[in-house]
């Protein structure tokens, strides 16, 4: 059978009785299996369970290999998962199962979620479905590849300093970093717990909404409220004067001029302060998470790159940053969301690079490009705000140009409204 492009269309066909959930599952799995070797994004295929009845019945999803599953520990980017009796599924995975979803596979990721690219010596290099020469982004690299390759309609990822938004930006996807704590992290391997968020990658906003509603039904607005047009949305726009390539800046200006009325702002100084706090927390907590392995000298090199410097962060610096977090959030929301609904900024400072340009150790490596992939991500995790990666244009090489859209805490539905209104209708590249 021909699968529809959008998950919501397949759900509608199942609801209408045009296809059974079982046939729909098989069709999705057949397609994913057919594409599997081409993109190298799968770690393990899983034993399929009888799906529950629910809105996601008949939907076969695949997720980042960072979540505990029933009787199964994830490989976390350094190996395959392992059977272990008694392990309970992660809260996020369990919520999707309760809504009827089946999980077909676990997906590759940067080692222990440390890395802004798909570089991983433990697995074959996964391929960007939009352009095999392009970087994939990380750390939820396999999630982005599987979604962009149409091997799954949506995938869970995690985002500590951009790990959903970066691969979504490289692969031209919706990438939703959720409000800190909105989705339970239980059963998900931590990196820096104060910054970690479980989130969603999908090709379409309405598909992401289905996943979000299954993850957080208590945050779903009442029928007819809170979900709707954002055409009159009040937006702030920050285009940094430093580190943003002119072509990217112009593409965002052109898109904004076509669709939105915005107030341009300069938040460079605020951003720099927030980024310092975010990095203090990221380094310190990564060192704490992997403390034993770091001191024993057997931490993965990707973990060492963040964790060893983290051993140098004084505890009082970390505690100061954590103590100031509520005040920073309060101030940021006052500055940016009292007179606006959304804050828009670039996702990356450069066009999506070739994968070699951001591969550590490669002769073509350019540090500035790697920095441009994640520079404007981490401060959002310190604040804990929801943020959505939205493709808005293509560059001269037909690679995606994306913006980040930020909103108040727990405004995920509004972000998805925004994305549904402005997402690129034609995903064919």
């Amino acid at each position, binding site marked *: 059978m021909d699968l529809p492009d959008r998950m919501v269309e397949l759900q509608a066909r199942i609801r209408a009785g045009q296809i059974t959930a079982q046939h729909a599952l098989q069709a999705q799995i057949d397609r994913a299996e057919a594409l599997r070797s081409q993109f190298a994004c799968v770690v393990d295929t899983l034993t399929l369970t009888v799906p529950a009845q629910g809105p996601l019945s008949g939907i076969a999803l695949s997720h980042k290999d960072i979540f505990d599953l029933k009787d199964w520990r994830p490989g976390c980017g350094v190996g395959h998962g392992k059977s272990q009796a008694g392990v309970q599924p992660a809260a996020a995975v369990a919520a999707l199962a309760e809504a009827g979803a089946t999980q077909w596979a676990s997906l590759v990721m940067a080692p222990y979620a440390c890395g802004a690219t798909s570089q991983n010596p433990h697995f074959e290099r996964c391929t960007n479905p939009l352009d095999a020469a392009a970087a994939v982004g990380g750390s939820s690299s396999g999630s982005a590849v599987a979604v962009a390759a149409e091997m799954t309609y949506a995938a869970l990822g995690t985002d500590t300093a951009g790990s959903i938004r970066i691969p979504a930006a490289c692969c031209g996807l919706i990438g939703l970093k959720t409000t800190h704590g909105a989705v339970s992290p239980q059963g998900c391997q931590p990196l820096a717990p104060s910054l970690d968020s479980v989130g969603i990658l999908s090709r379409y906003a309405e598909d992401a909404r289905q996943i979000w509603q299954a993850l957080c039904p208590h945050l779903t607005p009442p029928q007819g409220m809170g979900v709707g047009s954002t055409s009159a949305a009040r937006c702030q726009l920050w285009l940094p004067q430093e580190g943003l390539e002119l072509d990217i800046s112009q593409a965002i200006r052109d898109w904004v001029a076509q669709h939105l009325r915005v107030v341009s702002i300069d938040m460079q100084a605020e951003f720099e302060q927030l980024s*310092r706090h975010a990095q203090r927390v990221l380094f310190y907590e990564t060192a704490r998470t992997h403390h034993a392995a770091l001191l024993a000298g057997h931490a993965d090199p990707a973990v060492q790159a963040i964790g060893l410097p983290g051993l140098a*962060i004084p505890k009082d610096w970390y505690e100061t940053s954590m103590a100031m977090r*509520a005040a920073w*959030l309060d101030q940021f929301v006052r500055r940016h*969301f009292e007179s606006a609904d959304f804050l828009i900024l670039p996702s990356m400072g450069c066009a999506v690079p070739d994968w070699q340009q951001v591969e550590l150790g490669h002769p073509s490596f350019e540090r500035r490009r790697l920095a441009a992939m994640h520079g404007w991500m981490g401060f959002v995790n310190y604040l804990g705000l929801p943020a959505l990666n939205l493709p808005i244009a293509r560059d001269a090489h037909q690679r995606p140009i994306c913006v980040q859209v930020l909103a108040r805490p*727990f405004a995920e539905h509004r972000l998805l409204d925004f994305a549904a209104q402005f997402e690129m209708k034609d995903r064919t590249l």
Partner: protein
Amino acid sequence: MSDLAPSLQDLTELAQQTMAAHGYLPGDAFISTAGKLLQRLSDPQPATFTVDPKISYEDMLQRCAHHGSA
């Protein structure tokens, strides 16, 4: 700490002491790199705002969720 602008040498010593407290004794090159990291992450500008310390970060997330509340 956040009101001062310590020298790179001070910060390098601080990094070395902090790592040593963990039992981690790297070479000079890494100590130097860690000192530069602390210099980059030091915060010479004092905070200009405060919040009631009884309000937790989690409470603030909830409070900021609604218009007119922040």
